């Protein structure tokens, strides 16, 4: 149906008002040609009608445009502040936005500085992303079944849950020195930190999701003939899925936070590695470029999880 197209909802009132506004506006020839007595009344009502149409017209596009404008306005203002605070100041330790933009281009496609960093962005990005998604996937593969067991099986819960509750408050970054001893200097430590950063949010939310499954669903399933361990896949997993997704989203966010810390020592490639290296060389424009890339890809991967979530959880009133 065409009526479902949002664009039509936006434009229809506009066209409507254009066609009959001139004729009803007070003082135009058409109104004057009509009998005087009626005219005052008509003008009054038509003026109201015009105002109403105008209000309807405004209310149809303004609520849509407003958040977009506001969302753009704030970073633009920040960008402007950054620009005016740094441009034409050679002593400034922070480069102006334009320099950062050029550096970002050089990192991505080269042709500007042609130094050791030109055209290396893809390598670093792929290195970081493989650690983020690799660590995340491992965390998911372990936290999901463990969370389901802890949530459903009392013995497992009593055995493992207290330990996890004690280990959980330790900041992931505090594990770095120990990780370097266990896994050695290099990407394996970074991978471990990412894994740990994603593991807890997924685990905790899976346990919560499993424990809050409506008990009636188990009764319903068992009277329909679904008993024992088959309930794990037919009832527990789908019922806990909204909560599991929340955990995955949090976990992936943490993975991106932790990757930079993990790559800061003893790793050659990765966005965290070039940020740290550029800091030592006082190449602040590279530092900021790296930050922007992490921000952008962190955002994109969050959007991806949300998009998958919306498709899988279309049934849930709070997700769909």
């Amino acid at each position, binding site marked *: 149906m065409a009526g479902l197209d949002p664009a039509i909802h936006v434009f229809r009132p506009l066209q409507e008002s254009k066609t009959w506004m001139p004729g009803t506006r007070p003082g135009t020839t058409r109104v004057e040609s009509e009998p005087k007595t009626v005219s005052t009344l008509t003008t009054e009502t038509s003026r109201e009608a015009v105002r109403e149409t105008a209000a309807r017209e405004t209310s149809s596009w303004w609520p849509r445009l407003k958040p977009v404008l506001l969302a753009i306005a704030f970073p633009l203002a920040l960008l402007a502040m950054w620009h005016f605070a740094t441009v034409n100041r050679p002593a400034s330790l922070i480069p102006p936005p334009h320099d950062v933009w050029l550096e970002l281009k050089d990192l991505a496609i080269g042709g500007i500085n042609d130094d050791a960093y030109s055209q290396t962005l893809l390598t670093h990005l792929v290195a970081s992303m493989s650690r983020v998604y690799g660590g995340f996937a491992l965390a998911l593969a372990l936290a999901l079944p463990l969370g389901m067991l802890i949530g459903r099986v009392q013995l497992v819960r009593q055995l493992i849950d207290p330990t996890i509750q004690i280990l959980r408050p330790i900041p992931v970054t505090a594990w770095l020195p120990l990780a370097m001893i266990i896994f050695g200097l290099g990407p394996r430590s970074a991978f471990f930190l990412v894994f740990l950063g994603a593991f807890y949010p997924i685990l905790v939310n899976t346990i919560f999701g499993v424990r809050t499954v409506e008990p*009636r*669903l188990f009764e319903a399933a068992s*009277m329909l003939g*679904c*008993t024992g361990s*088959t309930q794990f896949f037919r009832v527990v997993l789908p019922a806990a899925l909204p909560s599991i997704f929340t955990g995955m989203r949090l976990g992936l966010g943490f993975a991106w936070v932790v990757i930079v810390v993990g790559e800061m020592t003893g790793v050659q490639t990765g966005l965290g590695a070039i940020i740290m290296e550029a800091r030592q060389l006082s190449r602040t424009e590279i530092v900021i470029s790296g930050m922007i890339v992490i921000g952008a890809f962190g955002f994109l991967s969050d959007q991806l999880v949300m998009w998958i979530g919306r498709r899988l959880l279309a*049934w849930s009133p709070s997700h769909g």
Partner: protein
Amino acid sequence: MAESAVPILELKNAGKIYSQGGRSIEALRGASLSVRKGEFICLIGASGCGKSTLLRMAAGFEPATSGSVTFKGRAVTGAGRDRVMFFQDAGSALFPWLSVEENVRFGLRVRKVPKGEWETIIQTYLRMVDLDRHRTKFPSQLSGGMRQRLQIARALAVEPEVLLMDEPFGALDALTRRRMHSVLLTIWQRTGKTVVFVTHDIAEAILLADRIAMMSVGPRSTIAKIFTVDLPRPRDLTHPKVAQLFHEIEALLEPDVVRSEQLMAAQ
């Protein structure tokens, strides 16, 4: 109407004691009821009289602490698809992640019904409850009456012998409830299932049941009296015989309602 006098479901001196943190409450004592195959029986009583407990014991969700619960002569040890339960809150009993048709399919899949037969079965029961136009909707998109009908379709699809209904229409508005009554009676007459229906609404019990079992108020509730409703369906609430029965039951329930309130306040 009852086809034979052989009980399909039987409670003999059944009792239930709940213990919780050192305190124990005797919810039922010496409850006996035999449900005949094919009959429609209503359990009625003031709130807190253990109607739901009795039904849950029959479903196998909770074991009796004394006496016996038997289905076709064999002790009930757990839930089974020969005795399906209808919950008052259909919204919490339907699988929210499954669409209307998938909710019905759930039982067929776990029962390992051949795949080729699924479509026919799903269509038959969804048509019966007038939901076949909403097959792809999720429970959250259905109204209260539609959810109850879906619960009925899902349960009937596993071909149970006894339908245990725990105030299934209690949360529905009066008009929807009337419609559900006729849907249920039609299905019952067409399929010949046995129905045990819990309610606290005397009119509902008289409209539906072959027999009405009245329970005394707890603690230590039991089946106090059984009325036989020997009137043709559809029943008219203004019929003098119906009115007479209504008042008879009401007069017996009245002191229980007062007592139930006092007990609740004392807790």
